[in-house]
């Protein structure tokens, strides 16, 4: 592998790792606030104990998210010096704002995790709200960086460096809003489904159902709302990409040939050399309808994109298929759970449903990772679309391989430790709960 490929591998590894923890950093505070609100409203002891237990998990996941995020801020400079030199002025302020939001999140998380007995219940819940809001804000700022890279706003240049006369205009990156909505929803979906999966597993093992039902009451609404809003957000994103990032749509859909009534490709293995797709299922005019709400709309194919500007088709397409497939599964599970709840007044507890929740707990992070890959692959060969090639942006420092191996090892170690610690947490017996809800002593 050449240096640029190694730099990409290391950055990709770091991001793929960080994203999951960052998602929990955004989603878990919201679930904590919900659990605390339930506890305060109902006086039900289960929610209070649930929130205490979730706080432990949050502390572990947040710590790993924070340190891996710090590494990323370093890696931006270490691996992509030319990107930082040319675009540091444009994206830097966003990272500065993200830093402020993250600072607030870290401060109030300190209160939430360690200060329960030291502040009033109102101050405690407000701290939780600040954590949830600042977590979402910091995710939004970072997403704007990505939106700018995908589709930059017009920048001014001096001495080969980009800048903005009005720096706030970076927020006008055309895909910013759709991307922020999509990212935040995915964070909530991942957190909700993973938490639901954990408690579904414990229910399947025949553990005391009362506590885990309470946990599902907290996790499932968040998971379901996000999973059902996701296709809408995805649709908006698809329209955005169709109009403004035709190269990305063409790669996502392995759409080689520009045409009206373009079909929607489901599955299939693209062959980039011949411009054909094997084993795919085509929905006639589907892509035209989805992208432009008109079956006869012309959809730009890869043939209209100069070969040197084309993203890798197979990787982008397959990532997209995984994302849509996994997301679709989450939506199905959600619809079923919602209907059942509506008709029967309780969450379904059939073994097959609980098992599918467990699968959803794996599918959700998979969908998120795949979605991130779609946006990254679909931007290639550029790091900032049209302005800076990825290969140019990469470091020229030699000897990245040993570092890549070291960091891979570190991330493996961290992941294994987190999993084993969380498993230890779940192995703890359910708290003893008095049969009748007692008013919160606080």
């Amino acid at each position: 592998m050449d240096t640029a490929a190694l730099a990409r591998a290391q950055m990709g590894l770091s991001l793929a790792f960080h994203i999951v923890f960052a998602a929990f950093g955004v989603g878990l505070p919201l679930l904590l606030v919900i659990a605390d609100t339930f506890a305060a409203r109902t006086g039900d002891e289960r929610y209070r104990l649930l929130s205490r237990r979730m706080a432990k998990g949050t502390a572990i996941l947040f710590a790993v998210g924070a340190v891996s995020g710090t590494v990323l801020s370093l890696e931006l400079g270490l691996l992509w010096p030319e990107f930082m030199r040319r675009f540091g002025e444009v994206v830097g302020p966003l990272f500065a704002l993200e830093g402020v939001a993250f600072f607030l999140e870290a401060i109030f998380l300190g209160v939430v995790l360690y200060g329960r007995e030291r502040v009033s219940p109102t101050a405690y819940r407000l701290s939780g709200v600040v954590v949830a809001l600042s977590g979402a804000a910091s995710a939004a700022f970072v997403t704007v960086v990505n939106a700018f890279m995908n589709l930059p706003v017009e920048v001014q240049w001096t001495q080969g460096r980009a800048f903005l006369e009005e720096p706030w205009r970076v927020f006008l990156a055309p895909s910013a809003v759709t991307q922020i909505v999509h990212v935040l929803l995915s964070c909530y979906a991942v957190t909700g489904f993973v938490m639901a999966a954990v408690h579904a597993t414990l229910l399947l093992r025949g553990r005391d159902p009362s506590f885990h039902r309470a946990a599902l009451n907290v996790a499932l609404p968040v998971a379901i709302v996000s999973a059902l809003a996701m296709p809408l957000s995805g649709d908006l994103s698809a329209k955005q990409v169709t109009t403004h990032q035709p190269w990305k749509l063409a790669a996502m859909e392995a759409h080689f040939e520009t045409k009206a009534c373009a079909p929607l490709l489901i599955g299939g293995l693209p062959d980039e050399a011949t411009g054909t797709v094997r084993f795919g299922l085509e929905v006639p005019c589907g892509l035209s309808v989805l992208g432009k709400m008109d079956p006869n709309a012309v959809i730009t194919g890869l043939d209209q994109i100069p070969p040197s500007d084309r993203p890798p088709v197979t990787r982008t397409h397959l990532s997209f298929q995984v994302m849509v497939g996994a997301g679709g599964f989450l939506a199905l599970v959600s619809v079923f759970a919602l209907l059942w709840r509506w008709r029967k007044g309780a969450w379904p507890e059939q073994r097959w449903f609980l098992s599918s929740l467990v699968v959803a707990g794996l599918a959700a992070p998979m969908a998120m990772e795949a979605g991130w890959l779609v946006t990254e692959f679909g931007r290639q060969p550029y790091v900032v679309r049209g302005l800076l090639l990825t290969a140019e942006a990469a470091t020229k420092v030699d000897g990245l391989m040993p570092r890549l191996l070291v960091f891979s090892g570190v991330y493996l170690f961290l992941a294994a430790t987190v999993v084993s610690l969380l498993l230890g947490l779940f192995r703890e017996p359910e708290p003893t709960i008095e049969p009748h809800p007692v008013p919160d002593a606080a």
Partner: protein
Amino acid sequence: MPLEHALAAVIVGGLVLYLLGGGADFGGGVWDLLASGPRKAAQRALIEKAIGPIWEANHVWFIFVFVLLFSAFPPAFATLTTALFTPLTLYALGLVMRGAAFTFRHYDSDARRRRRFGALFSAASVGCPFLLGAMGAALVREQPLSLAVDVFVVAAGLFTLALVAALAATYLTVEAADEALREDFRRRALGSLAVAGLASWVALGTAESVAPQLTARVGQGGPAVFGTLFGALALALVATRRFRLARLVVGALAGTVVIGWALAKGETLVWGEHTLASSHAQASTMRFLLAATVIAAVLVGPSLAFLFSVFSRPPMKSAAISNGLDGGHGKEPKGA
């Protein structure tokens, strides 16, 4: 004041706060490693309790400084990260290991694994400040930027290590609830202050050939005078057990060190390549960054004050009700 000077001042201010907060966390790790004597476990428990709620917030200063550097001085940042690639990579590794191992240790129930995480946490806590000092020395040297190892760089690394250890030990004398523990950290504060004084003397002594500006502006100027004064005063205050005052003076000492370092650098960002004037961002970007700094100060300042105030007062409920976190690996309360 030109905008780039204002931003450089903000960066230096961020570094001071990083040293006072994050630096003290590193120092806590150093004393965790060097915990000894009959109160070994109590020392470690005190360190963990002191770092606990604040640990993550302290390290955001580093990200803050780093981000401001690449937004406000992008070309210098690109050169700096390329030249200091290896130490920065090691620093990143150290930060990851430190932060993760600290949390893992807190929540692991297995004693043997807890010891291992503790070792990892304290080893990384020793490595990081050393690297920070060494990189600081490399940046102030008047030769092409690299991490060529010489006596000056090593002495600066050891000085930073001793300084953060002194910071932590002094803070802990205030935090300690019982007399014997306070005496433990009093001795440690005295020892680390003495080592820091010695190392600073070696660093400044060896600076003349590699960093004449440092000698001229710091070694023979105000910072050395103030540094010596604060150092001596800190020793005297710790020796006479005026711990709260000593904490302030050691903080002032750390501030003097960073400001002295910045004065020695002056206009130079990367020697021979970038100055503040030659590498700063456009005025529009710098104004935006300064505005963001003001917003940050308005939002973060009171929040931090709130956090510190929350943890400097006793819990509201009786201590018998564990909140399930202070005890970490403890069990859930059985009902409440």
